[in-house]
């Protein structure tokens, strides 16, 4: 019966490895980035509603809690985008050996952290 099949990607069966952990993180960040979609929508809606609403929306970004949310959104986008590029490279048959997959995984983790710090400073989150 289909209903009794284990849930994909079979979290309770596989031993954690960098490739599987990054794949799970890709899904979690993808799901979480819907929050960024809502924030992007609110930005445009406040813009469409005029000066007063737009100024109020922009002022929210001075609140520390909102800055933390923006930081995590930037981290999510950086990781999801870089890991997405890695997935596309895999689709073309590149970096698919065990060693290359693990090494590119580590590269993605470090790169996304560096990129997040750079972007956060650049856009004035901190």
């Amino acid at each position, binding site marked *: 019966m289909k209903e009794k099949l284990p*849930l994909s990607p079979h979290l309770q069966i596989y031993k954690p490895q960098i490739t599987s952990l990054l794949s799970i993180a890709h899904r979690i960040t993808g*799901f979480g980035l819907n929050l960024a*979609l809502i924030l992007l929508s609110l930005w*445009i809606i406040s*813009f469409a509603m*005029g000066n007063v609403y*737009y100024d109020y929306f922009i002022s929210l970004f001075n609140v520390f809690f909102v800055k933390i949310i923006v930081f995590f959104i930037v981290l999510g986008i950086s990781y999801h985008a870089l890991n*997405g590029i890695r997935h596309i490279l895999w*689709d073309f048959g590149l970096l698919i050996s065990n060693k290359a997959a693990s090494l590119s995984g580590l590269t993605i983790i470090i790169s996304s952290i560096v990129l997040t710090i750079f972007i956060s400073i650049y856009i004035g989150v901190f």
Partner: protein
Amino acid sequence: MKLDYSKSWILQKVTAIIFLLFLIYLFFSLQSINIKNHDELLIWFSNFFNFFSFTLLFSAVVIHSKLGLNSIIDDYIHDFKIKKRILFLKNLSLITIYIIVMGGLVKTILL
């Protein structure tokens, strides 16, 4: 028309590439104005290429999100009735967001 899995897989990759390219463009393009100023942003959006880029980016994001959520729902929800309801609510939410955002943007630029 219902997309088959291989077509939706290709569409997910294509929207990801469009999203990434236009995100980079918009990120650097918006640095040239004071984004906190409503009037400057209005002038920025009044430029056809900027408006076109944002429309493409936003469309790609919404489609990419729809397809990504589809595969998560497919993998983790096995009850057909619940799955159908969640998919309906998800599609309705995304379509509503898209219409409100694009409608609001077009109205602001044209009026």
